[in-house]
């Protein structure tokens, strides 16, 4: 599982390099995400612009990551393609995550949070 990580102020931007988040990579993806959170990264913007498909185990990791934050931070997602959006709607996950069309919009959201 290839993830690219950078920090924008208090936000950790995690960009998924893989084209798929599925059963083959789900465990590793989960471990890495949990590691980031345990290291104190509580505001995470997941950029999945390069992901063309997420299966149910991949979706499960994203939900588990949100749970892992335990309400202490924010988890947002940006740059989802239509197929991934459909999977989010199918599961109703679109109702529990902030979803943004671009990384910039996502970062603005976090910036506004800190100023509120």
């Amino acid at each position, binding site marked *: 599982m290839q993830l690219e990580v950078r920090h924008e102020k208090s936000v950790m931007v995690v960009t998924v390099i893989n084209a798929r988040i*599925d059963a083959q990579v789900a465990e590793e993806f989960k471990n890495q995400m949990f590691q980031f959170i345990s290291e104190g990264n509580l505001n995470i913007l997941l950029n999945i612009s390069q992901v063309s*498909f997420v299966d149910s185990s991949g979706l499960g990791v994203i939900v588990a990551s949100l749970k892992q934050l335990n309400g202490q931070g924010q988890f947002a997602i940006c740059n989802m393609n*239509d197929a991934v959006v459909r999977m989010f709607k199918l599961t*109703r996950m679109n109702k529990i995550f902030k979803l943004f069309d671009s990384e910039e919009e996502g970062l603005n959201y976090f910036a506004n949070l800190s100023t509120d």
Partner: protein
Amino acid sequence: MQKKADIENSYSKSDFQQSILYHVRYSTGNDWDNVSVDDLYKAAALSIREYLIDGMLSTSKRYNDQNDIKTLYYFSMEFLMGRSLGNNLMNLGIFDLAREALEDMGVDLEEIRDREKDAALGNGGLGRLAACFLDSLATLGMPGYGYGINYQFGLFKQEIDNGFQKEKPDQWYNENSPWLISKPEDACIIPVYGKIDHFEDMDGNYNPMWMDWKILIGIPYDFPVIGFGGKTVNFLRLFSAKSSDEFDMSIFNDGDYFKAVEQKIASETISKVLYPSDSIAQGKELRLIQEYFLVACSIRDITRKYLSQNDSFDNFHKKVAIQLNDTHPSLSVAELMRTFIDEYDLEWEKAWRITEKTLGYTNHTLLPEALEKWPVPLMEHVLPRHLQIIYEINNRFINYAKNILPNHPDAIRNMSIIEESNPKQVRMANLSIIGSHSVNGVAEIHSGLVKERLFPDFHQLWPEKFNNKTNGVTQRRWVLKSNPLLSKLLHEVIGDGWITDMSQLSKLEKYMSDSGFLANILQTKKENKERLAKVIFESTRMRVDSDTLFDVQVKRIHEYKRQLLNVMQIIHQYLTIIEDKKDLVVPKTYIFAGKAAPGYKMAKLIIKLINSVANVVNKDPLVKDQMKVVMIPDYKVSLAETIIPAADLSEQISTAGMEASGTGNMKLSMNGALTIGTLDGANIEILEEVGAENIYIFGHTVQELQKMKQDQSYNPREFYDNHFHIKRVMDIMGSNALCSDISGLFQPIYNKILREGDYYFHLADFQPYIDAQEQVSLDYHQPEKWAEKVVVNIARMGKFSSDRTIQEYAHDIWGIKPCL
């Protein structure tokens, strides 16, 4: 491309021949010198397919060009299409051209038509009704499509071994059928299984999430359905469950490739086999998944198509009508709601309004115990999100119903979607009624019983939802195609208008006293009987005489249809000859055909009984060929097309109140068979049309049987003790006279009638049946009088065209119109 787009004018023999030669060479890979009959069938079908595809494209364009067109989608787990080559040639209007073209090439069209395997994607009446409806929709130029499952194995092939039914798998062409057009680009990805994660959304509201599902992939295959005249070609869309490695990779842009591959075997099983009866399917996880697979693929396909032309779902119910053929597709209620709410964020109330206005439900079941239910734990395992939605629908419904009927707790309990049993059950009929704007039965008597007996509480709540749509059959297949001799005679006498307007058959009435016409009618029947006699000989090696009365009972073998009553009457006739030394008024050939569900022991025993009686009767020299009994194996649509035109007498003898409609009764009557039947299903409406003097009605009415049940006054033993004829027949069945090789074989039948209450009232109706049969013989003995009755039956069958049925559905329920 306009190669063959003008399908009304462009046929020529040489075009057709060129196309055949092309496909023999390039589709089957053979030289003309080495071509087999199977190759010729395939080449002919592929040649016709080109016309069908052109017709489909032009029809689709015609529909699309009309902005506000509403489309009907007919959801059915069964479509009993039968063979298509002859039907397609007939409806294209090039049957004679094709026959002559092939003749010039030294090929017999009949021989290659006979090679086509039936598409037996159904059990019986329900599936054949769906096929007839598609024919009528296309002929009427209405935008209406069938949605079903592309079973690899249709209904089993029946063989008779030592009198017993043996089942063999029947693999039709499936995806290799020349009629099917694969549409992988329209593949549907369907989730199943999983669990609900109870979460809150960002506003703190409850947000259930459907997680950990597995993937099913449905590939559509379109089966063109051409209307008479060829102007309209609709299609039946059949979904195959496929794993991922066999088609275009682009599907996996939104698919779960690796899981799909892992699930290859499991997922392809979904469309592997048609369940041979509702009772066998009950409670089976695979069947539930099949029903869901059909519904989910279809709704995904329909919503995708709708959204390609519309921005919101506001007008969905104005553009889309979905009819549920029995309860099998009733998960549509939950799947439509899930789609609207979860995937497109519609508010519950709005989603519900659209769902209800979109769906209509046809009930085919009269027996409360036969209504489909699914255990809640199984539903939760397979479809956890749908179960949640069903619970929510039920909660809202119960609150509503309690307001309307505040002091009727029993009614509320009866109407609840959830049956409070252990385990709890989801009642699919209740789900369908609550989620549909229309609930219809399929014959007048049936629709009445649906309201009064089956769902009285729903009827009290929503009387306006309930209506009747008496079944019908397509005269194109059941007269024009299956009975060319009668069709030719009709053509000579009244023209061809009846092919698309069956009420025109009434023009025959003025020929009722025309002795020349009556003689021709009888001659036509005789030739059809000779054709059937050949088929009987080929399949059973038994010779039957076409001068005898052909007494026909062809349908699924079931106790309520009472093949047993027929057999008892045959035994009675046999004993009349050999013990009472009385000759029959007319010699008779009793013809049976039909399959029993593999797990239905009593029905299978009845098949053995028929064959055992045949064995005794046919070999007894004392009978002197006055009667013969034959069971033709492997009843299917193509066999029905040979048997029905040859029948003199149509046996429609179900226990009153148990046959919803029947359609065999209509097919036989319009082919000039007189009906001997009970006051059940559409028999009653046939009686109304032809008059009491042209049909042989006997037996107890629904009300009389109901009263006997309520009073517990029916005692079959009394009939046995007090009627010599009955005792004699029962004693033979209880003895080993009919089964010398297996002692006591038919004892269960004897016990069921005399010791277990005779649930289907055989003995109550036995003497009236014998009397009716005697009247049949007396009338048949006077050929001209009989022929008059035959003509009345043919002339007055206009009501029973599926064109009339479809026009009623279109006007009253679907709101669709012809688009010509």
